[in-house]
């Protein structure tokens, strides 16, 4: 997890992640910078038929209420597709807390790392998540690359138990 305490730090963090990933892509390394390996929350595999499978990565699923957190997506792309990466929270409604949506997720779009994939066999993208409640929450999240790419049998979905820590009162809340 790349921890952010302010909007400025968030932007710095995203820029750093994007820069390191961009350098990784340019140099054709097989692994990203070691300091980023632990940031991978989603491991995505796109088969030749563009069917997407997702598993969880080593990143700790810890969020802080109302703050955006960035994570990496590791993408093995056997199809060569250049379609945009898409992320969806499948269970945004929390009837018991009354906070809807309780979880937001989006792909970070950056000039050096656009949401559209490059078609390379291995690449990384940056996503960000924000939890609007505190406590343990299960996020059911799907990643895909467009219509028809969701794999059959729920395989492009992951269920992650997030530890959503309460908002810290002395820190500014990042608004979208």
């Amino acid at each position, binding site marked *: 997890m790349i921890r952010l305490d302010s909007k400025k730090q968030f932007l710095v963090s995203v820029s750093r992640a994007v820069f390191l990933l961009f350098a990784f892509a340019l140099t054709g390394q097989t692994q990203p910078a070691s300091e980023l390996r632990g940031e991978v929350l989603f491991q995505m595999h796109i*088969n030749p*038929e563009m069917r997407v499978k997702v598993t969880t990565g080593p990143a700790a699923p810890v969020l802080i209420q109302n703050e955006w957190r960035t994570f990496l997506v590791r993408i093995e792309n056997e199809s*060569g597709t250049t379609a945009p990466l898409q992320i969806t929270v499948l269970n945004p409604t*929390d009837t018991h807390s009354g906070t809807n949506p309780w979880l937001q997720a989006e792909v970070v779009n950056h000039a050096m790392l656009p949401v559209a994939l490059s078609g390379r066999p291995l690449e990384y993208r940056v996503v960000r998540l924000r939890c609007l409640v505190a406590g343990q929450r299960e996020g059911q999240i799907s990643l895909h690359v467009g219509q028809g790419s969701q794999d059959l*049998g729920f395989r492009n979905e992951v269920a992650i138990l997030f530890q959503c820590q309460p908002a810290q009162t002395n820190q500014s809340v990042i608004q979208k």
Partner: protein
Amino acid sequence: MKRLKNFPVLIVLLVSGARLFAAETFPLIKGVESQPLLAQVGRLQGALQFIGQPLPENVRAQLASASQKSSASEVELAVQQALDPLCVGEVILQTNGAVTFTPSAAEPKLLAQGWRAFLVKVYNPGGRHDALFVDSPGARPLPESPTAEVAKRWIDVEMLDHRPLNATLSGLALEYRLIQIWAKFPGTRTAALAFKSSESGLNSERVDEAYKTYWKFDSGTVGWVAKNQCQLSLTNGALQIESTGNDPFLQAELNMSPGAKVVRIRAKAHTEATWQLFWTTEKRREPDTSHVVSFLATPNIGQWSEFKFNFTAEDHLVGVRLDPGMTPGVSEIDSIEIANAEATGSGWASAEMKFKIEPAIPVDFQVRDLAGLPTMAAFVIRDSQGRIYPMQSKRLEPDFYFQPQIYRADGETESLPAGTYTVTCLRGPESVPETQTVIVSKTRHTIRYNVQRWVNPMARGWFSGDSHIHGAGCLHYLKPTEGVTPESMQRHTMGEDLKIGSSLNWGPGFDFQKQFFCGYVDRVSNYPYLIRQDIEVSGFGSHESGHLCLLRLKDQMPPGGNSKDHWPKLGMNTLRWAKAQGAVCGTAHSALGLEGSVGRVAGADGPNALPSYDIPRYDGVGANEFIVDVTHMVPGTDGQLVPAIDFIATMNSDRRLELNMWYHVLNCGFRPRASGETDFPCMSGARVGLGRVYVKLDGKLTFDDWCDKLRDGRSYVSDGTSHLMEFSATEINMPKNSVAVGENGSELRLAQPGKIRLKVIAVERRLDTNAVMLEVVVNGYPVASKLISCQGGEQALSFEVPIEQSSWVALRTFPSAHSNPIFVIVDGQPIRASKRSAEWCLRGVDQCWISKEHAYLGVEKEQAKAAYEHARQTYQTILNEAASN
């Protein structure tokens, strides 16, 4: 904390996450938040539904009620009251990773020769993310079993942890896991169930490492090193061992706990020979003759064989050495696995349980077609709780685990325990579904199904086919075999009453499945049900610019290799090779890559955005390079030029996007026809023939003739619920000037603008509506329509349509069916229906190049540039010639 199990008095511990002992079988767990608990329960229900073992109705109602509770304490109580009675036991995972297991007092009911699913309650106070394993001493293999053990090895058990469940515990204090138990004999028997957790923090990719070491040689020798008289290399994802002397061996390091191990080596031995596996341990680091297993490796006519054997490591394993025979030659290894063989050793929590096992009763199938002849059909068998038989997750071919139905022929048998069943019988979309209540008692029973039809296109000469199904890949398994055999695919096509099944070999399992290609109809075909093996270019070659279905190949391999690594990267080059041998070629899952918008051709879209003038991204593997290929002619079998691509696939991806591409190129005067496909089991695993093409033939069905008429467009595409037969067009002022679709090039020639009469016999049957709209489409726009009944029965319809310029005309019941077009040529002029369509195509070529340039390599990049430039010039010419929009 002292446990007071089954004590009838609540002892309240008001500490978050603490446990309360209650009168229920298992102590209640408190302090669990509602949202993650209910989310988990939802996934559990989804998993049970997926494997055909839904929860009993009363339990589902209890859970629905639980989700409505207002407080977390009420929710957790209601969930446990609903699910605890279904658990075979409770596992407690201590914060240090230690496991205890307490079995249920009830006797779980099993099924002889069948599988049952059960829940296991897990209390995880430390929030650990371990994998949880289940095993039983009675589940050890019978081969190599001590005599005294044979009677005890009657059970098999496994943890079910595939999606939507997680491979590891979520970290929530309360969780329910799913296990499956199989029994060999009926009666009352005892066996131990054992549970163990992996190390904390394992993610799903690392789960296997906890109990086995697995080498797969897809991208390297993964730690195996040639040590003596051999050389190692990789070929097609396998480790190739070239033995150069009489004592070759190779070694690898590993790191596994002591204990009994089972080894599985999947290999091709070059000659029959004794292979040996030595193991080394921390205390004994050199191989010796007292720590070796020998096994006979026998060649299997070029096929993979699995060699399985056991050994026991007395202390920590650190290495293995493999000696592949004593004669020079080349052997191959696909994979090596060393796994813990039994649920003993440190960390396992075990308890004896008593099981009550119901006997299975043979049930025969009597399946007859309209003529009373024996045939094949689909059956979905559910018991009174909604559980499906045979259990889906334990199916191997010919039954597929991802389908609720099984396909059974007249005279075949299935085993069911005594009880009442609801059996749904169906033989493809042209048959009338029949639901029977079947009571199986203690004596042999027969399920009788006499197929009734609501439509019979074959009686009019229309033969159904699916131009895109697979025997391997996607939902199929790659182990224990790399996909399934043509026999299984034939069973499914016959059970769906699908006359033609084009079973296409592609990326996964390519080198295994290629053995089934023969260049003609497969020997397993049973007239009029024909299976033919061909190719989908997917996962190799030119796949990145759009997959291609190559039907009726004479030779499955381009020159220069014997696998999939040497294929051309440019789709046009693939098509040149295929068309030169007389193949019929088309796209696959056409809408993939035709989403989004990178710009627009000015003006409004048609009704319901069809046609649409958004320029798509061309970033997928559907009809992408198609926009280029359709402008090309290439040499056919006799050297005469023929269209490079014959059809665009429809019926299995976004219907509007499929048709939009087709309409625009038809408007430019090109004549690709539509085919119907499923891409089974990738786009859908529900059944083969979900998307179909019905082809009209004059005589007996042959695959060659069917392909020719598919190419000629003597056909309609359909999902099977809607049929558009005998489509024809006649000049009203000259009734003898008439053409039926697919005959005489589908061309009706008019001397001047005038009216034509269209005729069709439509048949529709749908349960969700009483009537649907049948539309006449001219140059992509609906110009006339009629409501038709969905009650079945043939409806002869007629339309009068004015034709002002050369046009294409077709019929559709969107999204269920579409006819192929009839081309009405006025005054000998080519179809130039729309400037906007020409501009859409022209800009599409540019966008496709932007998206696909990276996929063309080496000399083919220049060829690709030329192919795209040809397309640009062609569309520019058409744009100049088109008179209007």
